[in-house]
């Protein structure tokens, strides 16, 4: 059984249709790139999967259940906006997460803190934007979740930090989990994703494994993206 099943999903913001009759099934054990131009419905889709938006029509099943309490136990979500209290220290955030999420791995979190060269006693408000983004990735990836939903994890981060974040994402990812990474920086994530979903106006334009698509179109995924959305 697929860990994510979506049938005829529609999401509207007033008259604007963000997701238009989208159907897809996703299996565990892969990293999926969710790509598309701004306003293509990437964040809306991730919000629905993360149980942050219940105002939709169609069917969405996470591990066989509607998004809600049970899905929150197995889904680790990274928003594209800062969402942690700025007055907290890095170590306090780790403690907070381990209090609320039973699958949170403190050892993993402190290892990543070291990898990111962040100080445990440093407060979020004393950190740069890039450092704050790293903290949020760290907290998200330190959960031993079955599904990781990462919304723009590397946007607004310098190229050197991007590499470290991507490395931590791979290191934190377990083989039997599913990771969906939404981004428009395809060049950076092309090497870590197993499959890709091209989203346009709330519909899937192209989907498939990255190897198959490269072979089929004779181009890199980034080149294919540029060709389609030019």
């Amino acid at each position: 059984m697929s860990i994510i099943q979506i049938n005829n999903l529609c999401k509207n913001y007033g008259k604007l249709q963000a997701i238009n009759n989208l159907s897809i099934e996703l299996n565990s054990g892969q990293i999926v790139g969710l790509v598309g131009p701004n306003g293509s419905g990437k964040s809306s889709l991730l919000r629905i999967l993360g149980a942050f938006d219940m105002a939709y029509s169609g069917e969405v099943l996470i591990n066989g259940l509607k998004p809600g309490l049970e899905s929150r136990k197995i889904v680790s979500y990274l928003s594209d906006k800062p969402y942690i209290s700025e007055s907290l220290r890095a170590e306090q955030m780790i403690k907070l997460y381990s209090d609320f999420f039973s699958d949170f791995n403190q050892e993993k979190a402190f290892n990543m803190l070291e990898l990111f060269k962040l100080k445990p006693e440093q407060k979020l408000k004393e950190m740069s934007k890039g450092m704050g983004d790293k903290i949020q990735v760290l907290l998200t990836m330190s959960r031993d979740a079955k599904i990781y939903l990462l919304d723009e994890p590397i946007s607004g981060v310098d190229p050197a930090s991007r590499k470290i974040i991507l490395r931590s994402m791979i290191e934190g990812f377990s083989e039997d989990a599913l990771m969906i990474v939404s981004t428009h920086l395809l060049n950076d994530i092309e090497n870590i994703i197993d499959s890709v979903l091209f989203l346009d106006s709330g519909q899937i334009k192209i989907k498939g494994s990255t190897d198959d698509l490269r072979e089929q179109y004779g181009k890199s995924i980034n080149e294919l993206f540029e060709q389609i959305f030019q």
Partner: protein
Amino acid sequence: MFSKLYKYQVKELWSVARYFYLGMIGAIILSLLITATRIPGIVLFFNALSILSFILCGVTVGIFTIVYDYQNQQGKRSYFFRSIPARESAILSSRMAYYFTYYFVTVLFIVIGLAIFLILDNAVKMGVSFQIIFNIVKGFVLRTKIIGLLFILIIYAAIQHMVSMMFAITIGSEAKFKRLGIGGPVLVYFLHYIVMQIITLISMLFIPIAIRLPENFDSGFKFQIVFESMMSEISRLLSNKSHDIKIFGIGFIFITFITWIIMLIWIYKSSKNKISLN
């Protein structure tokens, strides 16, 4: 999970609220020190200033209580708070406890502070010591048992405030209000306020249960419950069969309890099934 959520919310606001509580204590101390100088003009001026800053601090804590709840439910911290795998009942009850804690503590602070200011003001005006006025007020409070009534009123107002704010934030953040942004909760608050005022007025006037007001309050608050509607008393007044209204309709209390329950169920269902974060 309830206690974890409750502690998280209380601690979060405490990092800001503590400074305002300190400000309130500071205003009282300042007022006491200035009063000790016994220079009437200066004392009155600084007491007025202290009362103003004291109330402002209390009101600010109240505003922050609402703002922090909004941040957790719909604002920038909502992607953390709403990702916590907690039952909706735990989220709802922790929010209620959070509101109640801050509202109750702040109002209690304000009431005690204002009482101190009042005693100080009278002590200065009458040219007697703080202790004398304090003893007079203490005697009145103990004789009339007004403190009990005040306590009930604070709890009543705390619950009313808590339910109203939670209702406005939760319902006003549903997808249908999303394009209004923060205007959604504001609109829902005012709509709910108008509806509640109408319901309260109608139930106060027409439900045949009231209390007969005592002729004077000096002997204490001894109310007599009568099963008459306030409207019938008003009718008698309009037809010149009576000179004044001696009863006060309390039917609205029961209706208010019912509306609180309806609103809490509404909040629960909306928060569980209609959540739509920005």
